[in-house]
């Protein structure tokens, strides 16, 4: 099970940039289709909000790959260490 957790980490690492690429591609297409300020604002908000989330997904994947989730903490002391 721990092996599976680690290997799927690679998928989560890849998912971050893939999601950002798809988001920017869609945003560019939508803005080109309707280049009004409303559309631009909407998509800029989405990109600004989703980029840190995508980075979070990559960090999550990295932690998973490194085996950080092989054992989950059972007390707060373990988290704080």
């Amino acid at each position, binding site marked *: 099970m721990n092996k599976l957790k680690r290997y799927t980490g690679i998928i989560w690492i890849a*998912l971050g940039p893939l999601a950002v690429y798809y988001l920017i591609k869609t945003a560019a297409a939508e803005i080109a289709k309707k280049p009004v300020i409303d559309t631009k*604002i909407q998509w800029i908000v989405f990109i600004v909000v989703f980029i840190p989330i995508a980075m979070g997904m990559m960090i999550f994947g990295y932690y998973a790959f490194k085996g950080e989730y092989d054992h989950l903490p059972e007390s707060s002391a*373990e988290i704080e260490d």
Partner: protein
Amino acid sequence: MQQNETKTIWQVIAASSVGTLIEWYDFYIFGSLAPVLAAQFFPKTNPTAALLSTLATFAAGFIVRPFGALVFGRLGDLIGRKYTFLLTLIIMGGSTFAIGLIPGYETIGFAAPVLVLLLRLLQGLALGGEYGGAATYVAEHSPTNRRGYYTSWIQTTATLGLFVSLGVILITRHSLDADLTKSIAKFNQWGWRIPFLVSIILVIISIYIRLRMKESPLFAKLKTEGKTSVNPLKESFVHKGNLKMVLLALFGATMGQGVVWYTGQFYAQSFIENVCKVDFDQSRTIIIWAILFATPFFVVFGRWSDKIGRKWIMMIGMLLAIVSYRPVFNYFIHLTDVKELVRSLPKQMPGLNINSQESKDFEKQWDDFFAKGNKADLIIIKNDTIEKEQKIISQYKYRWILKDEIQFSELRTDTVINYKSNPEFRYNKNVTYIDKRLTTSKYWKIVAFVWVLIIFVTMVYGPIAAFLVEMFPTKIRYTSMSLPYHVGNGVFGGLTPFIATLLTTIYTGDKLVGLWYPVLVAAVCLVIGVLYISNKIDPDVND
């Protein structure tokens, strides 16, 4: 002694739940009244005002909510849960009441949309801080074996807030005049302020109740011992040990929970109203009934999670949502489809001379139609005569009131050519069927299936407060659980109606294409949750 403890916990639950419910109510009335508010404050004729409208819609939900989670989460871990979620309540209540008092764009001009935007941002900020405080406060008063049960009462508040907001809006909309049309007109003119103003009474009562409550015993103990966090943000999101749990909470639980929540309660309503074209009142009462019957299940699943663990209830809820969304929404389309009915309706035939015998024969069809107890009202919206081309372009609406069948309006734009010499109908193929009023049987079938969608919501949402509380240490709990919750709900969930609708405008061939967004997000979350989350119930949240 035990009786006193039981009394205290119920006081804690009541004080937390009522306030949180009011905050959700305040947040949702703005969303539910968006078209009315747009007309009052954000006229489309003024591009800057329209831009502010977009900002009010997107910024409050997606940026300010998570930001509020950080600001108030930090405060809650520094000064305490009680005063922080009291503050969020005051900010939310004050902002909501103030929106109800702002004069419209026509009266004070550009200041109106600016003020509304600022107040809406304050609402988002306050909401970001409320939930984490309420859930933490209840959980820190709860015994281990009932933590899921007691916190599940907090979980009912978001849905009940939506329920109350829809109810207050519908009642106000219907009660301003004996004539419904006049009542709706009055509501759009000034009556929309009532739901905002009413909020202040509820907020004052809730503040009074909360002021009488004591600080969470766990936090009070930490404070007495001088063990509170010095920098909750750093400890929550910089320290690897905690950051990895924040990421796990987001990607393995709240992300999927957010999309299931918003699909079941918001996108379902939006889909029934905008895709199936069911009328305003029915599309809302369907949700109201479904919520009413489903809400007790938040508590059922919360309680059950104390016995079997939180993980599998949430994961099964997500799985059921993923596999059933397309069939359920497809069934909504099927139930509200009027194509078969339209074929049986009497009409002028395209290409027929109006004065011809064949055309007159259609009068018989109409006679038969009326003889069956059906009715039809014709409302001409616009007639444009183009003399040069001998053409009349008519925009009109038939209201079909059919016996024991769906009632609906048919919006058409047809043309009569050669209107002076040899008039002939030319039908435009772009006909829309709107304002559908369902039969009782179809109405309740849709209620039943929306209820099923909300049951999935209760499965993923009922146990999640206890789950999040158990993941993090007391001294940074408020901060650590608030952010993944509001990113999962505010960003992933809040975007559901928008992205789903957007997908339907990009891929126009498939009315269900919008469901791919919640399905994919929930599927990723399900895989992460199943693989990485533990089903163990933390026996000790005191640490």
